[in-house]
């Protein structure tokens, strides 16, 4: 297809506008994170720090328990990712291979669970976890995150299982392999990359999650990174901009790295089922 020169130019102008829109808040965050207090107080802020400094990062760690928070986030996110994938993979296998009432109901639940306002679930969960003495505990949060991560974990995994040809399993069965043997030595290796991608995605969503953590974790030493970040913003909304930016940037790094690695797989997995329908 030929595109005229004017149209081409228009396309590039539009693309550039998109790039600016997507990039500028993030560049500003970076710029703010590396500016010394003197420059932050200037009435005419500049894009590039004239005198870049790491002082904001040091101050951020002094002001809030960022290391503890990062550790809590890591435990919660790792726990959620591992448990969610462990229990979702077998179920996704059944959902993908067998059209039973159960798997239809599970699919329905996956869809409906996307639509529910969390507040309707969090109040009862709060009461239940309180009775189990799991309020204010990272394991309690992990339990919530596992269930919260299950819908999309199932969705992605069902897509990945469908991508493994059932014929391969049948061939193995013809060759005399038992069902378990087939699953372990034929299906599992083909599924492994999808399982890893799903786990990483579950990790990121748990790492980024805020609402449940805000409600369930009360004492500062138990809180996760997103909750601790909000403490940088004072009651009056006044914030120490430099340390705030520094801490926010640090909190984003793990997700950015992981996401950059698995981005293709995620979109593939998410869309595998969706687009075909």
């Amino acid at each position, binding site marked *: 297809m030929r595109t005229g020169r004017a149209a081409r130019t228009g396309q590039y102008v539009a693309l550039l506008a998109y790039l600016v829109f*997507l990039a500028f*808040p993030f560049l*500003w965050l970076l710029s703010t994170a590396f500016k010394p207090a003197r420059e932050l107080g200037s009435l005419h802020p500049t894009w590039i720090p004239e005198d870049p400094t790491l002082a904001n990062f040091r101050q951020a760690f002094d002001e809030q328990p960022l290391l503890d928070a990062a550790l809590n986030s890591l435990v919660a996110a790792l726990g959620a990712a591992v448990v969610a994938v462990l229990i979702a993979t077998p179920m996704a296998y059944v959902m993908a291979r*067998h059209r039973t009432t159960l798997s239809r109901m599970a699919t329905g639940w996956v869809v409906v669970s996307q*639509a529910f306002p969390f507040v309707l679930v969090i109040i009862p969960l709060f*009461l*239940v976890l309180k009775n189990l003495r799991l309020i204010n505990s990272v394991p309690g949060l992990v339990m919530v995150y596992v269930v919260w991560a299950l819908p999309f974990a199932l969705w992605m995994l069902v897509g990945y299982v469908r991508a493994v040809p059932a014929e391969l399993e049948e061939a193995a069965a013809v060759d005399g392999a038992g069902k378990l043997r087939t699953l372990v030595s034929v299906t599992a290796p083909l599924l492994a990359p999808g399982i890893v991608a799903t786990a990483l995605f579950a990790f990121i969503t748990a790492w980024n999650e805020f609402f449940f953590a805000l409600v369930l974790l009360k004492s500062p030493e138990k809180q996760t990174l997103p909750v601790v970040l*909000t403490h940088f913003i004072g009651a009056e909304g006044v914030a120490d901009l430099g340390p705030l930016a520094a801490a926010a940037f640090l*909190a984003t790094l793990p997700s950015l790295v992981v996401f950059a690695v698995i981005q293709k797989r995620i979109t593939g997995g998410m869309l595998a089922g969706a687009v075909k329908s």
Partner: protein
Amino acid sequence: MTLATATPKRPRPAKRRTSAGDKERRLLDHGAWFLVLPALIPILVLSVGPLLYGIALAFTDAQSGRTEPTQWIGTLNFQDLLHDTLFWDSFRIGLLWAVGVTVPQFLLALGLALLLNQRLRLRWLARALAIIPWAMPEVVVGIMWRLVYNPDAGILNETLRDLGLGDGRDWLSGLATALPAVIVVGVWAGMPQTTVALLAGLQNTPRELHEAAAMDGAGAWRRFRTVTWPAIRPVALAISALNLIWNFNSFALVYVLTNGGPGGRTRLPMLFAYEEAFRYGQFGYAAAMGCVMVAVISVVLALHLVGRLRRGGDA
């Protein structure tokens, strides 16, 4: 996060079954429970259960930290809600916000997806940048935009000053500007997901159709309407319905940006319900709010399903 609401129909492969195959099949059918239970039990205990419990709570006077036992009060919470102007204000703001974010977001994402589907230089950069809003914690997105909107040290006002467009203002604290300001952030934050979904739809469009249409002398708009749009319509409908619902339910972004202020101008229903439940301890009342939100969301879902049916089932 899911993007569509139906499972694709897969034709059952016709296959001959040996008696051994039959036996294997039945074994797995029994074994299937063993495979399903590890996920099913947590789903029932921690998701479906609390959901039903939450609905039940809406009909009680449950409060946190109260000594008297909780009692059934019928539809009293709902009657109170009916007269709670603050709640309906937040409800109206929630709808404004959901539509205000979803519509521009969809149009912008469609534009970007169409661009990214072309062979342009810099395409890789746009794809790489699109990861940023997607991977960021919502809290960080909120913080980042607070830095942008900052009345003194923010880049937005400085740019406006440089362009000679007035002296800038405190966007997030202005009664008139707060909601539009947070809507811009909402659009920014959700654009990548919508773009990727639409892009995937575009890439499923057969290129030959386009070429044939171009050969017949169809202009760009006509090609879009007759070839591109029908191909991406299912994805577009699904992602828009989900975006509407997700936005209506959103919390973290606005909590960080304005915490519902100024004067409740950005108090989304979730922020309102959160305050009722966890600041004032009104569990029953907040649960009733959740129920009303569910009712509205069901309407969106129903409309979406009607759209699918009209389209004639599977495409």
